[in-house]
């Protein structure tokens, strides 16, 4: 019962022993140990650049286990407890703010049907849950995608040229508007495979291909930026948080007489 109380207590009110634990784990000793462990794991994961090796595989599986354990704990505290357990058994909520809601039994049963996929012979029950959830969700999607994505984007494509023409004489603005209008519609023509891409349709389709190539080129340039940023982040950690390069820099400045 004591363990259950610890499991279900409101984490927001830290008890004295929890405050001590928090001070310990955020203290300099644990930060130093953590830094060395993190640096070691970083170098282990980087070893894959040389070649696949046992240490990297170990790190990979360790990462998987930690991730799954973290997710399970998070799911329990953020989803299972407040949204399901406390609504079914409100007396378990130490804050006393939860209200009984027996309707939650129905989605609970549907949820258990999903877990029954692991039991041979009962997996078919999960189809009911998927049908309920996916069916309902697609009903919402139909109207939302139409009003939130298709119409605004379509309107923005068509409105571009009249807006450029009416907002004052500006050759650049008109050129941009033409690029936007022709580029977007030509891509749609390219993806329309019910008509053979020959003649006029073929020509428009080729424009669409070039439009896509420029878009993918821009995406490629940005992807390089993203991956390099991630590398910089790790090297910054190794150099400044682990090796403390800034101390070496300061010594170098002193020796240079600067």
């Amino acid at each position, binding site marked *: 019962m004591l363990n259950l109380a610890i499991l279900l207590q409101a984490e927001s009110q830290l008890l004295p022993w929890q405050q001590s634990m928090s001070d310990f784990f955020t203290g300099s000793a644990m930060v130093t140990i953590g830094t060395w462990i993190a640096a070691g794991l970083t170098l282990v994961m980087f070893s894959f650049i040389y070649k696949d090796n046992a240490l990297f*595989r170990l790190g990979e599986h360790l990462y998987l286990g930690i991730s*799954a354990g973290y997710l399970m704990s998070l799911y329990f505290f953020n989803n299972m407890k407040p949204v399901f357990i406390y609504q079914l058994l409100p007396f378990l909520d130490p804050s006393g703010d939860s209200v009984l809601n027996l309707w939650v039994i129905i989605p609970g049963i549907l949820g258990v049907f999903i877990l029954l996929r*692991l039991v041979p012979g009962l997996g078919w*029950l999960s189809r009911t849950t998927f049908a309920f959830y996916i069916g309902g969700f*697609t009903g919402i999607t139909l109207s939302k995608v139409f009003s939130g994505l298709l119409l605004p984007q379509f309107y923005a*494509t068509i409105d571009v040229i009249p807006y450029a023409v009416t907002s004052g004489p500006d050759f650049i603005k008109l050129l941009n508007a033409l690029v936007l209008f022709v580029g977007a519609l030509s891509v749609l023509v390219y993806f329309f495979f019910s008509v053979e891409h020959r003649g006029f349709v073929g020509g428009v389709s080729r424009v669409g291909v070039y439009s896509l190539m*420029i*878009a993918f080129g821009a995406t490629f340039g940005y992807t390089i930026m993203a991956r390099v940023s991630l590398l910089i982040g*790790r090297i910054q950690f190794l150099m400044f948080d682990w090796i403390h390069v800034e101390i070496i820099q300061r010594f170098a400045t002193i020796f240079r007489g600067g």
Partner: protein
Amino acid sequence: MQFFRKQFPILLAFVMGMMMFIREFIPAKIAINLYEGFTNWAIVIVGFSALFAILSLLHHHVNKIRRKVPGHGYSIVTIVAFVQMLILGLIFSVRPGTPVGWEYWWLFVPMQATMFATLAFFIASAAFRAFRARTWEALALLVAGLFVMIGRVPIGEFISPYLSDFAGWIMNNPNMAGLRGVALGVALAQIAISVRIIFGIERTYMGGGD
């Protein structure tokens, strides 16, 4: 029983789909209650599916250990890491300042961040070795990529502000046009698939089961 295995889910998907679509056009309290009720129930259901995903992962690794498949030692590492994380998480919670918070910051974050950081080396090597403009389309891709790559970082702005302006022009005009075409296509496809699911033509989401 065959009805509940095969026809009932398709019928349920149709009823739920039509109900949630039609309620969009009914300006009444019952429509709002239906919407909120479905959302609250869906959060509970999706929670169980997250639990199922984790249990499947464990099931896979436990099977590997049971059958003593080559490399099952790694599965033991996964299970041990999972169990200790779960026990510590359930007892002490997951916030910063707890054992799980410490492990998250000093074990999990470095490992995941580094896994993706190694991609920088691979993308650099791949770009150098394989990125060749052998056709006019590839040349268009290459030129756009190079201008964006150099124009959107400080060195490009330092070489010439026009480089930065041109990269900005590429992002806001031809790039935007191409990806808008893709976005419109995706939107149309989403609508088509939604209609197919509601009318029972598309059934792959239900999974195999038995």
